[in-house]
């Protein structure tokens, strides 16, 4: 098992880094909406782009690219892969 401290929010991930989604700390509607896109617990996620001043992030999940608002990204908890 991973240590608690290894978990970070998606919003904190650097460009190019990937990891596995550990949990999504949001309301059911949000979690469902994300799950419909394949963004769900256990999915591999890769950070493609972050923007200045904590703007939205661009991520890749199962080969599809999505843009997520910053608030949403900070609710997605990720266990980053070892570098």
């Amino acid at each position, binding site marked *: 098992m991973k240590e608690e401290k290894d978990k970070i929010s998606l919003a904190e991930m650097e460009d190019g880094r990937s990891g596995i989604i550990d949990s999504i700390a949001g309301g059911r509607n949000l979690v469902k909406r994300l799950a*419909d896109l394949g963004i769900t617990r256990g999915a591999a996620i890769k950070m493609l782009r972050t923007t200045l001043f904590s703007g939205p992030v661009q991520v890749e999940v199962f080969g599809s690219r999505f843009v997520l608002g910053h608030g949403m990204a900070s609710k997605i908890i990720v266990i980053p892969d070892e570098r």
Partner: protein
Amino acid sequence: MSGEKKINIVLAGQGNTGKSSVFNFLTGLHQHTGNWAGKTIEKLEGTLYYRDYTVDVLDLPGIYSLTTLSVEEVISRDYIVTQKPDFVIDIIDSTNLERSLIFTLQLLELECPVIIALNMIDLAKKKGIEIYHGRLESILNVPVIPTVASRGRGLTDIIDKVIEQKENKPSFRPPGYGKEIEECISQLTSMMDGLDIPYPKRWLAIKLIEKDTDIIKLISRKAPEIAVKADELGKQLEEIHGHDSGLVIADERSHLAAQITREIVKMTPHRKMSMNERLDLITTHKFAGYLIMVLILGGMFLSVFSFGNWLSSALEPVFRGWHDWWNESIGITFLATIGWSAVEGVLALFQIALPYILPFYILLYILEDWGYIARISFLMDKFMHKMGIHGKGCISFIIGLGCNVPGCLSCRIMETKRERFITAVLVTLVPCSAVSVIVFGLVGKYVGLAWAFGLYIFAMIVLFIAGKLSSKLLLGEPVELIMHMPGYKTPHLRSIMVQTWDALKEFVYIAAPLVIISGVVIQAINLAGWMPAISSFLNPVTVSWLGLPSITGILLIFGILRKELILVMLAAYLGTAEFAEVLTESQMITLAVVSMFYVPCVATISVLWNEYGWKKTMVIVVAEILFAILLAGVVKRVLDLVL
């Protein structure tokens, strides 16, 4: 005609899967649009005559899932369940198989006959994704047809398949989920015998476990014991899976989709980055991305405006010729002049539509088809959030710079009512091409270009503050951006033409009635000789507060029709186009500021009315008139100190 054999099919799919290309290819010119009953969401229908069949095609709104979250989704799901179309054509993006399959699984849960179109199969191949569609067919037990909708490939195969399947009814079974979930589902369905609800039982059970609010409400009303049981089973599932039972099925679907994808796809990894991926990296870059955006949008406006100015000055003498002909052949009587003002209303629409809106739309849809517009939403999201809306709203602003009418219409892409409304209000403050004619023709020419650009920056600041205010005033949570980022692809002429044509048609249909009627009314007031009375009635505002010549009262009334009329009429009333002789610099800037904000033009009012009802529209109109007068008066006083 042998058209007695009727089939009706609906097209369903997530955004960016090429659904509209399929629709346009199949129905061509036999299309009609309307609204879904009681909703401002567009309903697209068309007809295809193929072999002996009349195939009615309905394009469902682009949706991401069939869980009740937005109006579009509810419309689609209810339509499929209650209208029972012969076939649902599920259009899948082959390059994003997994995401699309989640949606497909939800469709299959609705127990409707599905045919899958594996669209953009050529792009998938280019990306090194090989799909064994035969395997998908046998796993899901539905027909699968590879297509390239943008080139029309494979689309008649779909219809062939529809006809074939129509004649020998296929067997059907929805995909199964994990054992304990199926157990819960069958416990619930066994309680539903004799329940009078149009939805499939298994689907109802799934929705109950997913805690779909609408369905729980429905079931609690008709058979409360089932809702209680579902709640109980949900708690059991929660214990097994360790998290919210509402999500167990969503999880299950995405795992099933992942599993299916693994079985049917062979990936050949790329050795190097493709051209398009590199393009994506540059255009979304922290710094370079913004620079490129400014260049692209700047280039776009520059070319639209130079083309527009050229064409509109070329059209001017033509229309004047027609007016002369009208006067000569019908004579200058009260009725003839009124009649001409109706004709002029129509001409005016074309005078905006042809030189400005048409080229603007063509360029916009090229960018859209190419995939760039989504990048703008991404880059601008943070900034737009400061105004209480998310990145997609930026697109409406950009369109609004061309013309506020399509700008307001494009607000439909926003997810919630609140965001649609805020965005639409803000769009009416965006200086459109007609306002630009005033700003550059008056301020740019006689006061200096720097002042003209300064006014644009001023408009942006006003827009920003208005955004902040309206997002504070209108209660509700701002929605966060979730958007699929399409890959870049070569734009297709056909789909660009179709989209441009549709948008142009919509502009004319919505705007025409009010533009013509108000044109006639204002002309009648003018002919009755009431204008001087009205303008002196407005004197306290125009002369005392704004320091403008008295005749601007008349101009501002005509400006409601089309804002550039302010400039045209000014020249006509003064008998000179040398405005510097009659207006001071301060007066020009003040007039430009009033024109920018004072009232959305009649065409824009028509759209607001159409989309948001007359009450909200009147509030916007009155508020903006008061605001513009107040603002311009303040500007004048500041200018008097500076100049």
